[in-house]
C-alpha cells in the first residue's frame, strides 16, 4: 500500500507537466451514455470541454491524438457517496446535530485514495460527513484533480450538501460504562431511539425557522430606521436555513422503509426536499413514494446484512427503484470500492436485467443528476467537461483496465506512465532511506543522547484513522 502512496506522489509531478490541451481520442468505442454508443468514434476535447463527438472528427493542428482502436471511452465515473480525501475523522459525532462542521474545511488533497480512485476511472466524488448523527456535517462535491491543492479539488458550481442519518448509527448513545466496558462511562448522547432521531431533525428545523424569522425581523427593523442588536450568527442553523431555501442538498443515510417515509413526512412538514436517500436498502418497498418526493436513491449493488437494519435487502433494489421512476446511482462509501464502480454496474444487469446503458448510467449521468451537475458531467456530449476514461476492454468486463483518465481535458492518470515511473521512484525512495539510515548511525557517537519519543505533529501521508466498528459510514 505504501508503495502505491509513493508512486502517486511521483505521478503528480508528471501530471503537472501536461496542461489542458486539445486532445483527440480517435477510433474508439464511445459509450456516450445519453446519446448511444458510437463505434469507431472520436471525441475532441478543447479548452477542457468536449468540442465534438462522432465518427468523422478531424484533429486540429497541434492536437494531441490518442489512438483508441479496440478501446472503450466512457464519461468519468461519479461516486455519490464517498469519504475519501478527508483529514481527520469523518464524523463530528459528539452532538446529534453537527451541521456546523464542513467537509470542505478538511479536504486533504494528499490522500492517496484520490489517485487510486483515478486509476479506476473515478473523476467526481460527493464527499460526505459520516453517519454518526441525525444531522451531520456539510458536504462537498470534488473532482479528483490529484496534485492540486484542496481548493483545486472543489467542483465549481456544484451545490453543497448536508448529511442526514437515520436508524442505528444516530441513535447510538455512547458508552454506558461497565456494561460493555468499552471505556469509561460518559454522559449519554440523545437520542437513543428512532423516534428520538425524528425529534432531533424536527427540533433543529424548528430552530432554523425561528432563526430565519429572527433575521427577517431584524432586517425589517433596520429598514424602519431602528437600531436593533442583530441576532447572533449560528453556524449550526445557517446550513439548515439554506436547506429550507433550496440552496443546499440533503443526502440522507437510511435503510428502513418506515424511516424513509418518516423523513419524507418531516421534509413535507418543514418545507424542504430530500435530494438523495443514501444506501436506502429498503428503497424497493417505498420506491413510489421516493419518486413522488423527487428524491434520488444512491445504493449498493449487492451489499447487505452487515447490521440488523440492513437485513431486509435485495440486490434487485437498484433495478426495482429504477423501474419505479427513481433516479438511482450506485455508490462506493469506500476507498476500495470506488476503484471499480464500473463492475458494480455489471451486477445490476445480472440482478434486475438492466441494459448496459441503464447500468452504466448509475455511475455516470444518474449520480450527476442527483448532485445537480448533469449539465456539466456524466455523459459524453458536446459542451460538457472533458472528464473521460479510456478502458482497454468494455468497462462492464471483469478484465477491463483503465488506461487513461482526463478531467477537464487534462490527463490525471496514465497506466503506462505509472508503471514506467515506478523504478525511478523506488530509486528515489531508496536514496532517502539510505540517507536516513546514515543519519541514524551518527548520534551513537554522542552517547547518552536522550532520544525523544514523540513523533512529529501530523504523521505525513499516514492513512486516516481506521474506521472503528462504531464508525459505520
Amino acid at each position: 500500500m505504501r508503495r502505491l502512496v509513493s508512486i502517486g506522489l511521483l505521478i503528480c509531478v508528471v501530471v503537472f507537466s501536461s496542461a489542458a490541451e486539445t486532445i483527440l481520442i480517435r477510433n474508439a468505442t464511445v459509450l456516450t451514455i445519453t446519446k448511444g454508443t458510437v463505434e469507431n468514434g472520436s471525441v475532441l476535447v478543447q479548452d477542457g470541454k468536449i468540442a465534438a463527438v462522432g465518427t468523422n472528427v478531424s484533429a486540429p493542428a497541434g492536437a494531441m491524438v490518442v489512438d483508441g482502436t479496440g478501446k472503450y471511452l466512457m464519461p468519468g465515473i461519479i461516486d455519490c457517496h464517498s469519504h475519501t480525501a478527508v483529514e481527520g475523522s469523518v464524523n463530528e459525532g459528539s452532538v446529534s446535530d453537527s451541521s456546523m462542521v464542513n467537509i470542505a474545511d478538511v479536504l486533504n488533497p494528499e490522500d492517496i485514495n484520490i489517485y487510486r480512485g483515478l486509476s479506476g476511472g473515478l473523476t467526481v466524488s460527493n464527499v460526505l460527513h459520516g453517519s454518526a448523527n441525525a444531522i451531520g456535517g456539510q458536504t462537498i462535491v470534488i473532482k479528483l484533480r490529484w496534485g492540486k491543492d484542496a481548493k483545486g479539488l472543489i467542483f465549481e458550481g456544484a451545490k453543497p450538501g448536508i448529511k442526514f442519518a437515520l436508524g442505528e448509527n444516530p441513535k447510538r448513545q455512547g458508552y454506558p460504562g461497565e456494561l460493555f466496558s468499552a471505556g469509561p462511562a460518559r454522559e449519554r448522547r440523545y437520542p437513543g431511539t428512532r423516534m428520538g432521531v425524528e425529534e432531533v431533525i424536527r427540533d433543529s428545523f424548528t430552530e432554523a425557522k425561528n432563526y430565519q424569522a429572527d433575521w427577517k425581523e431584524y432586517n425589517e427593523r433596520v429598514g424602519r430606521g431602528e437600531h436593533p442588536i442583530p441576532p447572533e450568527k449560528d453556524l449550526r442553523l445557517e446550513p439548515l436555513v439554506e436547506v429550507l431555501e433550496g440552496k443546499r442538498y440533503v443526502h440522507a443515510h437510511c435503510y428502513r422503509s418506515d424511516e424513509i417515509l418518516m423523513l419524507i413526512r418531516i421534509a413535507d412538514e418543514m418545507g424542504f426536499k430530500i435530494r438523495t436517500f443514501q444506501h436506502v436498502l429498503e428503497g424497493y418497498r417505498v420506491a413510489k413514494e421516493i419518486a413522488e418526493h423527487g428524491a434520488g436513491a444512491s445504493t449498493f449493488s449487492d451489499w447487505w446484512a452487515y447490521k440488523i437494519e440492513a437485513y431486509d435487502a435485495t440486490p434487485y433494489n437498484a433495478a426495482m427503484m429504477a423501474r419505479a421512476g427513481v433516479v438511482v446511482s450506485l455508490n462506493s462509501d469506500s476507498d476500495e470500492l470506488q476503484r471499480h464502480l464500473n463492475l458494480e454496474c455489471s451486477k445490476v444487469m445480472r440482478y434486475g436485467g438492466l441494459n448496459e446503458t441503464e447500468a452504466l448510467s448509475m455511475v455516470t449521468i444518474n449520480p450527476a443528476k442527483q448532485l445537480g451537475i448533469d449539465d456539466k458531467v456524466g455523459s459524453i456530449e458536446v459542451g460538457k467537461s472533458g472528464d473521460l476514461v479510456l478502458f482497454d476492454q468494455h468497462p462492464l468486463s471483469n478484465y477491463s483496465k483503465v488506461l487513461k483518465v482526463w478531467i477537464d481535458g487534462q490527463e490525471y492518470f496514465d497506466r503506462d506512465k505509472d508503471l514506467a515511473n515506478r523504478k525511478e521512484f523506488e530509486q528515489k525512495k531508496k536514496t532517502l532511506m539510505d540517507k536516513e539510515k546514515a543519519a541514524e548511525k551518527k548520534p551513537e557517537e554522542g552517547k547518552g543522547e536522550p532520544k525523544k519519543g514523540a513523533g512529529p505533529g501530523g504523521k505525513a501521508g499516514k492513512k486516516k484513522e481506521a474506521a472503528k466498528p462504531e464508525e459505520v459510514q
Partner: protein
Amino acid sequence: MKHVYVLAVAALSAYAADLPTPIAIRDARVVTVSGAEIPKGAVLLRGGLIQDVGPNVSIPAGAWVIDGTGLTVYPGFIDALSTWGIPGAAEPAGGGRPAGAPGPAPVTPSPQTPPAQAQAPRSHGPEDRPQTYSFERAADLVSPTDRRLEAARAAGFTTAATFPNRGIFEGLGAMVNLAGERSRDMVIAEPIGQQIVFRTGGFFSGFPNSLMGNIAYVRQLYLDLDHYKQAHQIYDAHVSGTRRPEYDHDLEGLARSPRVLLPAMEAQQIDRILSFGPELKTPFIVYGLHEAYRRIDELKRANVPVLVSLKWPEKPKDQDPADVPNYRELEMWDRAPGVPGLLAKAQVKFGFYSDRVDTAPDLKKALKKAVDGGLSRADAIRALTLSVAEMYGLSDRLGSIDKGKIANLVVMKGDAFDDKTTVEYVFIDGVQFKPSKETQKGPEKKEGATTGPQKPERGIN
C-alpha cells in the same frame, strides 16, 4: 527543591549587587542584528537597559568590566512560542497537548483522557464554550522557579513568548524574560496573542472532537466576538431603550488578543490555515511548518509571519523495522530542517519555537540542524532575535543590541552554531547569569541525580 532555593538566592544576590553598577563588555565582537556587526567594540549596560554600544564606548569609572576578547555578544535569543516560565507546563498531565503538539494532529485520538476532561460535563456545542481558556493569562502563571529556565538560558535564550497550555483556545500569551526575582519581573509585555491548538478526542467525547469540529468551533467563536463587539457598539450608542448585551468572559479574552497563532505542519494544513486565518479578522501567525518546503511561494504571497518548530521530525524511536516509512515521511525527515533556509531566501518573516525541546544541547543541536540545512548564520540569529520581536510588535525594546533596549544579551565563546561554542554569560534585564558547564552539556543519563537541577522533571503537576 534545595536547588531551586540555592538558585533563588543566587539570583537575588545578583540583582542586589549588579543593578546599580554599570556593566561593560569590551573588546568583543558585537552582533547587533539591527546594524552592521562590530568586529571589536563594547556594550554598556545600566539599569537593566543597553546604555551604549559601538566600537568606541566610553566606559564610566566604577563599571564592572568584562574583557570580551575572543567573545561574541548577541542579543538574547527569543523562543517565539513557548511554555517556558509556566511551571508544570512541560507536559500536561495525561498528555493534554496531543502528541507532537503543534500540527492539527487528528490522526490518532489521544490515548489517555486527561482526568480533568473525563469529569468535565460533556459539551453539547459551541454554546458550552468547551476547551476555552481564552481569558487565561500567561503573565499570571509565569514563575522564575520553572526549572526549564536554566536550561534555556544555557542555550542562549533570554526571552520567550509564553502561552498557557490547555484547551483549544489556550489563552493570552506574554513576552517574558527567562529570569527574575519575582514573577512580575519577568513580564515584558502582555497580552501578545492567543494560541489555538486543534484537539481531537475520542469518538464519543464532547464537542468538538474532530478536526472539522475544531475549525467550526474556532470560526463560531470569532463570529460570536464580532457580534459581541457590534452589540456593545450599538448599545453604547443607544443606551436608553436598548437591552444591555451580556458580559462574556471568553470573548473578552479573544477581544484582548492582538493576534492569533494557528497550527499548520503539513502542506495541506498550511493551505488550509492560510485561507482560514483571514476569516478571523485578527492578524495571525502560523506555527509548525515542517513541510513548508512545498509551500514557500504561497507563504511569501500570504505575507504572514511563521514560526518553525525546533522539534524536527524523525524516525519514531521504536519503529517496527518491517514498517517501511512512506516517501512523504522520509522526505519530511530529510527536508524539514531546510525550511528555515528556504524561508530566509524567500524573505518570509520567521522565528523558531522550542516545541518542548528544552535541554540546552538539544536546543543547540536543533538550531544547528537548520544552519546545516542551508540557513545562513546571520539569518539564523535574526530569526532568533529581531524577527520575533518584530512579529510581536516589540522591536522597540527587544531583539537587537541598540541603545535604550532591554539589556538581554548572550555572550558566547566562539560563533553560535559551532559545536565547541560555549555560552559564557547571559544577561537578562542587565543581570548576569553564568550557565554551568553541566547545564550546557545536558543531563548525564546515568547519574542524573547528582548533576543538578537542569533536567526538568516531566509530568510534575
